[in-house]
Every structure is written in C-alpha cells, then in structure tokens.
C-alpha cells in the first residue's frame, strides 16, 4: 500500500547525493506523480522528531541532517581521522605531495590503476585539495596544510629526497617523466591476465 511507497521514497532519498524531482521518483517507483507527492507529504510528517528532515530545494526533494545535531556532528567530523594509510592511499598521496599540482589522469597513469577511491578518501580526510584545472580541463590536486602537520613537516621542502632510495639512479629524466614511464610499463602487462582485452584504461585516462 501507500506505506510501501513512503518507505521506498525514503530509501531513494537516503541514497541519492543529489535532490530528486517528483518525475524521477514517479519513474523509479512506477507510480503517478500525484501519488508520489502525497507520499512525500506523509514521509515529511513521519520524519517529525527524527534525525533527518525532508527538504524541497530547487532541484527537487532531498534528506538533510537535523540542525539540532550540529554540535555533535562538528565534534565527530572536525577532528581529523588518522587511521593508517593503505598502500594505494600512500602512493596517491606521495604522487600528489611530490608532483603537485597533479591531475587525476596523471595519478592513474603513474599508478597503472584507477586512483578514484584513494583520491576520494584523501580529499575527505583533508590531506589533499583541488587546485584548479589543467589545460585539458582535468581537476588538479595539491597537498594541504593539514597534510604538513600530520606528517610533521614545516614546508614541502622537508619531504625526504627520494634519490636516497632510487632503484635506478642511472635513469635520466625528471621525476615526473620517470614515474609516468614506469607506470605505463606496469599497466602494459596488467591487462593480459583478463584475456584479450585491449589496454583501454591507459588510453582513456589520457
């Protein structure tokens, strides 16, 4: 019955990062727009006294946090979370720290694999931030002051010189070029195990 529609709408609004229009909601639930509107009103009433609020914005309907919890939310999220960095995160952070500003396609080329989730985590933890766009329109990243503090560095010049561990110091070329070459060499063999697929990831990221 209608209780089910109310529940489904709550799930969809909960999941969506963007506001949802009545037409979209009607499409997804297979119901008439008038039914959806009625159900949205019921949902709004049902949410009274709960921790989330149904809002109507320009783009449609969305769930937002209840302002009464703002202090607790600030306490929870304002403190930087510093769990150990996973290898993929450490690699991505190292690339940004040493090469900044650097674009996401470049990070993916150097790592030889997609860097999306590691980049998102580093952004969320405030270790890196956006720094404009490249000539080709890709978002650029740089490290943040929080990054320096968490690593106990005064400036970026205090980053350890990678030359001291360099596996092939005889290789000529800038750090950036060498990283890109090594990344492409690694990606060149990464695709073979999955059968005759073409090396698409590389081509796309350029």
């Amino acid at each position: 019955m209608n209780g089910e529609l109310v529940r489904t709408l709550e799930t969809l609004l909960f999941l969506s990062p963007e506001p949802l229009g009545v037409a979209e909601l009607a499409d997804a639930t297979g119901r008439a727009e008038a039914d959806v509107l009625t159900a949205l009103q019921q949902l709004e009433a049902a949410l009274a006294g709960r921790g989330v609020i149904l809002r109507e914005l320009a783009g449609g309907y969305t769930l937002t946090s209840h302002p009464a919890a703002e202090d607790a939310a600030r306490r929870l999220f304002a403190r930087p979370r510093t769990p150990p960095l996973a290898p993929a995160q450490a690699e991505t952070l190292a690339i940004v720290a040493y090469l900044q500003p650097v674009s996401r396609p470049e990070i993916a080329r150097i790592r030889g694999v997609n860097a999306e989730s590691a980049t998102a985590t580093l952004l969320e933890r405030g270790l890196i931030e956006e720094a404009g766009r490249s000539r080709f329109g890709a978002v650029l990243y740089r490290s943040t002051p929080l990054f320096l503090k968490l690593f106990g560095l005064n400036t970026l010049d205090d980053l350890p010189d990678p030359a001291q561990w360099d596996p092939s110091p005889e290789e000529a070329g800038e750090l950036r070029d060498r990283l890109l070459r090594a990344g492409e060499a690694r990606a060149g063999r990464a695709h073979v195990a999955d059968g005759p697929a073409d090396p698409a990831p590389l081509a796309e990221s350029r």
Partner: protein
Amino acid sequence: MAIADLELDLDVFAGPFDLLLTLVLREEIDLLEVDLAGVVLAYLDHLEAGGELDLEVATEFLVLIAALLELKSRLMLGSEDNELAELEPGEAAEELLARMLENRRYRAAGTHLKELEAAERGVRFRSAPLPPALRRASLEHAPTGVYDPTLLGGSLVGLLRLPPVVSLRHLVAPRASVAERLAHLRGLLRRGDFGFDEAVAGADRVTVAVTLFALLELYKQGEATWTQKQPFGEIAIAPLDSAGRSSLRRGASA
C-alpha cells in the same frame, strides 16, 4: 566446423579456441588459470547441439587438448612438487590428501562468501559527501607528526621501479614460431633418433611449448613418432619412413 572456431566462455577467456591457443603460447594467458575441463565441456556441448562427429576434427581436438593438459600438468608440478614423486606411495597419498582437504575447505568457504554476497545484494550505502561546513578537518585539533614522511618517499620509489623481466618476455615470445620449430625438428630427424630435451636444450618455456606443437604436427603428418616410458619421463623421437615404420626398434640407427 573447424576446431579452431569452437567458441569458449571460460573464467579467464571468452572467444574461439584458436585464439586461446595463440594467447597461451604467447603467455598472454596463463595456462594454469585456464579451466581445461571447461574446454572439453564446450566441445561436448557443441557435439550435443547437433554438430556431426567429424573424425578428423575430433582427432585434432584430442591431440590439442592432450598437449595442453600435458603442458599444464608440467607447469603445475613445479620443482618443489617433485619431492612428491620421491615419496613412498603411502606418504604421497597422505600429502595429497592433506592438500585436497585444504583446497576443499577454502572452496567451500568461497561458496559461503558468495552466499553472504547474495544475501547483501539489495543493500546499498549512502554515498553523499559531508555538507561543506563539516568537511574541513580543523587544523588546530590535528595531531603533529602522526604519519612518517619516509612512507611517502618509499611509496614513490616503489612507483619508479620498472618491471624489466616481463617486458623482455614479451619481446622474446613471438620469436618462437611453429614453422621455425618444425624446421628445427626436421633437421634433427634427418640425423636419426633424438630426445625431446635435446631438441629444446636451453630454450625458454614458450619455445618448449611451441616445439611440442611442432612435434604434434610432425606426428600428424606421419613424419615422426614418439614414445615416453613414464609420465614426465624423457620423450624419445624417431623418424618414420614412408611405410610408416619407426626406426625406434632396437639396433636401428642412422
């Protein structure tokens, strides 16, 4: 239908049989990951689906699949496993049993994980970012030096490392062709009997595999025959004369 066109749909490969062979020979697909039983099933399915039993095709299939099985079992029995061959039958059985049970246990555990995965199929998580006001972690509450900067230098160095061995193999692989190996084997056959090990002395894995295929070809053409006294033992190769008689008989040598 030619056996080359047999359509396969395996975990690691989907496409015609001859492409699979090519990729295996070029080491672009690891033979160890190919489910050969799946290839056999695909062929049986093809027969069942009304394909006529063409003896020529069936023979070709048997020869190819046997060669692949042989190659795969050689690869699976790496050097450490040769210890197994030296064990008494009783000990070897115990060792194999222990391995089978362990394998079985984690295969079942994998099935259990797939059930858990299926049970969670309809569960989704919210992926919206934090509201901007909450997003910025405040600098003054941040602890100093919780992470070690050498972690970054170390990560970067790992990314500089080139994978030299693999890229070399790719350059070498295409050099071993069946035609070239055929010529090599025919050259040896002209001098009489010889061992397979002799024919592939100092060769890499790909060349060994391609040589085996060349040998199968000679066998099919009736130019040579081969014998192997025990599994993984030496393979003795001998020329066949025009009447199809082998010179492998005692005393016969060129």
